[in-house]
């Protein structure tokens, strides 16, 4: 009988007795992986985990979770869906473009990283600016990321869209035009020929339109004296330079261009073949300007004497050349006769420039220039300069028209006359009478906020444009980023309102092809690539016809040797006219001479301060010309006695957080003389103490070098020609083997540099102190802005600083006396940065090796390792190390660009943003060195000299800084050092033998020996 028990099978396999099933029938859980089972495949389905793995997982999990908890929050980065052409992460793109701000011009290269412009550098292809950039041009990249600009068009202060604005504005404009109402476009100098064409097109549509051009820092007088346009000037051909109040190295007309030319005449060489000639530079002025600080001979006059000095110089030159003199010019001033003698002696290579905006003064100066043969050599009337096209008369006329209610519509095209015109207040009050007003200013500034419509223009880095800085020289602006806010180029706006719907970029290209390039698309692309186009070799020796007697008579009427207190209004090298006042880099820019930032002040000479019983920091009330301001006193050696000087560019009220309330507005003090705006008040100036005090933020408070020859070395040309080592201080030490150079004795073994040995040479003779490098360095290296109070606390973070020393009249032994600057001091500028010592005192004292020496001679700072003992900074003989006292980014007290997302766009991603508690200092732009080395390595070659440029050297308008590999015998720096080693080259405080990798070249003044020895 068969087994009757029912049999249940678990599956078909069991029923069919499948061999593989039978084999595993007793193995309920399948194969367990053994510890040696390296496959571990069953782990995948979760069945294979066992005790050890569990512990591992648990350990890993806990560790991972706790690590994740420690981690700083990570912001999401979003990958490109479609990668744009040309954007490679970490690879910079460079675009040629043009910086213009009113009449300021520079052909530039824009460095963009991942689509963000982060650095501006000079375009060396430009025959005009030749790669030079001012501090303001350097800083303009930060103005792009200014969070306080208008974020779109506005009607009556309320946000709107462009269609609405266009519709309303065009309708109202048409209504005004229909009535025959007067329409005005007010702008500063426009360098762009295409923009001018756009304005002309607008004017054609609305025929009552007139274009009024003015400048906040006009050179109207100069233009008038030369028949309406400013001639081009070339200091590089000059052997004698005389400046009457023209700060041509700092602020006058085109300072960086002039500085480069001036430097050509100031460069000397110690070698046998070296140049032993220098131009001689005389400066007569009221304030101690950046240019005056670089002059060989300098004397002061009061603003009321300016015209008289010009006439006296004319007479002195006329006497020597046999020309007829003119009446007047009775003024006693040092060095004037000597200047005249030198001017005549170097006839054909002489130039006189005057900063005065008075056309009559400029006429006399032009006549003097004609006498010394300047026209055709140093001055060329064939090439007109377009930097200052402002017409003071036209602007005054316009304001009077507005006041009289004669203007029906006004468009302020990037102009802010309510702030920066002497009659701004009057204009501001009268603007309400204008039926229709619009401003294209980038923000609702003093003028823009009074207009009914705001049609904000894009930043120049977001724009298409062109420029013609000098006749025949053209330059293109191309956008380096698309518009950040809903702004629109003013040219497009004007075209739209004129009924032309062409996009401005197309309009520009068409205009260039038809009027400038006159050839096909290739030329356009080349021009766009190069950024510049055209040349003009024309030279004219023609000098303007001047009726000297008439001019002298006008001068006699307007000028006299006054005995009252006088007021001089001047422009600062950093902030300029104040158009970029909301740029924190420029606010924290130490003024080359006064070393003050974050303020303007009443500067007075020490004798005047004593006379008025004032001291530095006393707040005084200055009143003149119907205006009154309160500001602190700064005692300025070298300023004319009985004068007060105040800078323009400050006292903004609607520019933004960084600018508002900083300083006072000095524009209203500017008065009219001989039909032009002249920055001086010669009558009725009163200065009275208020009893309050206000500290001025200065980055340097000790003014003299205390006769320390090891710091600053200088000589005069006469001595230098005889012996290139004259004036050199070579410290010697007495040893058992006799006297030895201090640098020859060392306890150290030194470093071997088998590959590169980076170094720098700074020529004190060509450094003008302009401080463009300071801004360039801050931009390149993410140097934080710390604000006014922290500068007062002496905590500015600049890696690169320009030390400025005044000479003292005291004897070397008189230590107290040495602290006091002369009344008319000689000045020396000394760029000071990490000296990258070979025997670095900072390196030995760091307990954690956060600062070390590289195999290429760099002193490196490892931020991550730094624990912040500050011993390195204390032990740094040059005091170039900077400590992060606070967290300067994302901290409310430091509400500058590091504190908002937009401002942080300017950060250079190649450089760490330092946190609080760590030390930082100049790295010699190690990120650039590394990039250059990698580029060369990829191409299997060594870096070529000049290929790696560091930010300060790159930005120096006068090429005073030479950077390179001292191991490469063919590099510029090696050649320079070879020539100067037994000449001008020295290390600062050599005798402590830290062996810096930065050498300085002694300053040579072109003056008589006796005078210099006194110092």
């Amino acid at each position, binding site marked *: 009988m068969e087994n009757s028990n029912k049999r249940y099978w678990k599956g078909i396999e069991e029923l069919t007795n499948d061999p593989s099933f039978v084999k595993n029938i007793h193995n309920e859980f399948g194969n367990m992986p053994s510890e040696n089972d390296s496959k571990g495949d069953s782990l995948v389905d979760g069945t294979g985990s066992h005790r050890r793995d569990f512990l591992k997982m648990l350990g890993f999990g806990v560790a991972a979770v706790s690590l994740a908890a420690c981690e700083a929050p990570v912001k999401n980065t979003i990958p490109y869906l479609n990668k744009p052409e040309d954007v490679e992460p970490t690879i910079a793109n460079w675009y040629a473009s043009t910086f213009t701000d009113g009449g300021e011009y520079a052909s530039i290269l824009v460095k963009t990283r991942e689509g963000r412009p982060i650095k501006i550098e000079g375009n060396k292809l430009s025959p005009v600016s030749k790669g030079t950039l001012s501090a303001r041009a350097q800083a303009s990249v930060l103005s792009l990321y200014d969070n306080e600009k208008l974020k779109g068009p506005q009607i009556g202060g309320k946000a709107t869209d462009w269609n609405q604005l266009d519709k309303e504005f065009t309708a109202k404009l048409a209504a005004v035009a229909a009535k025959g109402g007067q329409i005005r476009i007010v702008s500063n100098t426009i360098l762009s020929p295409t923009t001018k064409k756009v304005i002309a097109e607008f004017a054609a549509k609305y025929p009552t339109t007139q274009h009024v051009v003015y400048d906040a820092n006009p050179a109207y007088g100069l233009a008038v004296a030369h028949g309406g346009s400013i001639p081009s000037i070339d200091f590089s051909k000059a052997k004698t330079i005389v400046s009457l109040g023209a700060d041509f190295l700092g602020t006058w007309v085109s300072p960086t261009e002039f500085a480069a030319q001036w430097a050509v005449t100031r460069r000397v060489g110690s070698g046998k073949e070296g140049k032993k000639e220098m131009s001689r530079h005389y400066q007569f002025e009221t304030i101690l300007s950046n240019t005056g600080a670089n002059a060989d001979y300098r004397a002061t006059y009061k603003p009321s004497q300016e015209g008289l000095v010009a006439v006296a110089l004319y007479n002195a030159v006329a006497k020597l050349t046999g020309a007829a003199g003119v009446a007047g010019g009775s003024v006693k001033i040092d060095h004037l006769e000597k200047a005249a003698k030198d001017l005549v002696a170097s006839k054909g290579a002489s130039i006189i420039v005057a900063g005065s905006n008075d056309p009559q003064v400029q006429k006399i100066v032009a006549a003097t220039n004609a006498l010394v043969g300047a026209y055709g050599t140093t001055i060329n009337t064939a090439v007109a300069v377009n930097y200052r096209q402002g017409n003071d008369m036209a602007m005054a006329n316009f304001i009077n028209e507005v006041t009289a209610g004669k203007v029906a519509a006004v468009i302020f095209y990037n102009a802010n006359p309510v702030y920066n015109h002497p009659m701004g207040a009057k204009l501001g009050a009268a603007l309400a009478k204008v039926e229709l007003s619009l401003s294209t200013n980038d923000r609702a500034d003093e003028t823009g906020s009074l207009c009914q419509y705001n049609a904000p223009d894009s930043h120049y880095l977001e724009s298409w444009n062109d420029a013609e800085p000098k006749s025949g020289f053209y330059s293109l602006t191309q956008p380096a980023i698309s518009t950040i806010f809903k702004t629109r180029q003013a040219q497009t706006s004007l075209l739209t309102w004129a009924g032309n719907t062409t996009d401005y970029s197309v309009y520009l290209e068409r205009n260039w092809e038809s009027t400038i390039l006159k050839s096909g698309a290739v030329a356009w692309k080349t021009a766009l690539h190069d950024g510049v186009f055209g040349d003009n070799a024309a030279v004219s020796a023609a000098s303007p016809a001047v009726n000297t007697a008439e001019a002298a008579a006008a001068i006699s009427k307007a000028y006299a040797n006054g005995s009252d207190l006088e007021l001089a209004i001047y422009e600062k090298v950093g902030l300029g006219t104040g158009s970029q006042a909301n740029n924190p880099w420029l606010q924290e820019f130490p003024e080359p001479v006064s070393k003050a930032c974050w303020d303007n002040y009443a500067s007075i000479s020490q004798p005047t301060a004593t006379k008025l019983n004032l001291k530095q920091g006393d707040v005084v009330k200055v009143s003149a010309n119907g205006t009154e301001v309160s500001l602190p006193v700064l005692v300025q050696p070298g300023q004319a006695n009985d004068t007060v000087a105040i800078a323009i560019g400050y006292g903004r009220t609607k520019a933004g957080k960084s600018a508002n309330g900083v300083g006072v507005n000095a524009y209203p003090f500017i008065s009219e003389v001989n039909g032009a705006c002249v920055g001086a008040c010669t009558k009725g100036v009163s200065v009275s103490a208020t009893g309050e005090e206000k500290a001025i933020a200065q980055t340097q408070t000790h003014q003299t070098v205390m006769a320390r020859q090891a710091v600053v070395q200088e000589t005069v040309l006469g001595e230098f020609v005889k012996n290139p080592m004259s004036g050199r201080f070579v410290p010697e030490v007495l040893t058992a083997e006799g006297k030895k150079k201090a640098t020859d004795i060392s306890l150290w073994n030194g470093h071997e540099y088998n590959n590169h040995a980076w170094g720098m040479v700074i020529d004190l003779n060509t450094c003008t102190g302009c401080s463009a490098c300071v801004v360039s360095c801050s931009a390149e290296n993410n140097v934080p802005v710390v604000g006014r109070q922290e500068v007062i606390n002496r905590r*500015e973070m600049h890696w690169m600083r320009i030390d400025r020393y005044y000479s003292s009249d005291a004897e070397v032994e008189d230590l107290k006396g040495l602290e006091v600057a002369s009344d008319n001091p000689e000045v020396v500028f000394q760029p000071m940065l990490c000296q990258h010592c070979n025997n670095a005192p900072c390196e030995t004292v760091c307990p*954690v090796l956060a600062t070390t020496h590289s195999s290429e001679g760099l002193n490196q700072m490892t931020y991550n390792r730094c624990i912040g*003992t500050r011993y390195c900074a204390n*032990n740094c003989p040059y*005091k170039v190390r900077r400590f992060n006292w606070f967290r300067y980014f994302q901290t409310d007290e430091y509400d500058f660009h590091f504190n908002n997302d937009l401002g942080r766009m300017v950060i250079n991603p190649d450089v760490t943003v330092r946190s609080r508690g760590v030390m930082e200092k100049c790295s010699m732009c190690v990120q650039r060195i590394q990039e250059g080395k990698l580029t060369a390595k990829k191409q299997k070659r060594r870096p070529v000299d000049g290929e790696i440029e560091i930010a300060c050297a790159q930005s120096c308008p006068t090429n005073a800084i030479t950077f390179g590999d001292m191991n490469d015998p063919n590099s510029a720096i090696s050649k320079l050092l070879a020539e100067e080693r037994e000449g001008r080259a020295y290390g600062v405080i050599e005798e402590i033998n830290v062996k810096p990798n930065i050498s300085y070249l002694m300053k040579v003044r072109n003056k008589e020996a006796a005078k210099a020895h006194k110092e």
Partner: protein
Amino acid sequence: MSHVVSPIREHLVTGGKSYSDVTHDICKQVEGEPTKEWKIAFAVSCVIFAYGAYCLFYTWWQGIGVWGLNKTVGWAWDITNFVWWVGIGHAGTLISAVLLLFRQKWRTSINRSAEAMTIFAVLCAASFILAHMGRPWLAHWALPLPNAFGSLWVNFNSPLVWDVFAISTYLSVSLLFWYMGLVPDLATIRDRATTKARKFWYGLFSLGWTGSSKTWARYEYMSLILAGISTPLVLSVHTIVSMDFATSVIPGWHTTIFPPYFVAGAIFSGFAMVQTLLLITRVVFKLEDYITIEHIEMMNIVITVTGSIVGIAYLTEFFIAWYSGVEYESYAFINRAFGPYWWAYWMMMTCNVISPQLFWFKSIRTNLMVSFFLSIVVNVGMWFERFVIIVTSLHRDYIPSSWAMFSPTMYDIGDYIFSFGLFFTLFFLFAKFLPVVNMAEVKSVMKGVSTNFPVKKKAAKAVKSEE
């Protein structure tokens, strides 16, 4: 234990105390209820400590930018306070170790509190090491610890690393020395204990002390050995601290005279601080018989000697600055005396050089009030000495463009106050919970018991009846 009494000396313990009087007098502070004076003093120090702790917390939270330092003067009150506290700490080791080796028996009644003071002073100094760092949370990077960065080690060239070793060695040896000396006395309190808690805690910390001859013999050896280890520390710690300055390149710091000068200065300020504390303690705890005028006088003599060494060092520095012919060095010293910080310099000179010379007069050096006043003056002077060295050297060094002034903020001051709060809070805790005089050692310097016995009984009774 030998009973050594110098035939010509005054008795080191007066009032005819017996051994049991000693035990009773010292232990009653520990065993009894806290006195009113102690409560007030402790409360005040706690308040100071709390205020200081707030300032210190704020400094750590915001960054040391809240201090008055700048790009030129990178150290000021922080390192001044650090050096000052370390200096103060020196007296403890000197008294307990060096004087032990030289068999100076008068030290016995003051060494306990001097050692305690050392430890607390070193803790205060350590607080400034931490506080002065930009990133104190990474302070352990200054220790040569193995790490994940491979061969990344500390910089053995840096005097700051030497400092780390010097201070930590000093703290650990001092702590050990102090604690070992406490063991017999802790055992005494344990044996006298009436409460369970006291019996437990003092029992725990007395390490099973039995008081057998063998134990005492070992105790003596250990004291000698620890004294031998500590003695070089008296010289080394402040020598190394002085090298923070001496090995730098800054004029006014770069001076070979610093090591001996700093050591002398440290002993000088340490003795002054011990003097200040003892003069308070002997009154508050009624220990006039243990800390006698003799002690005060001896201390004052040491202060005068070390003060004179310091004075000579000041003059030598000046001479060398002139003699060296180094422009910067000469300027640094002229600037100290006649520059913007002249007042700090003359404060230092007056307090450190002139004031201790008053102790040449016996009437002055045995006068308690004057001694107390001058002991404070000396420490004010020594604080200014460090301030002068640090700030006036830094504020005008090589490059005149960077010359700057330093002025303290409320947080500079607050963090200094913190260290006082910490010091006094710890000291008052010590004074309450531990015997402030080394009973065991004091007993060894008392006059023979037998000669004293009858007198003692009467005197003791008299004392008791007064109470």
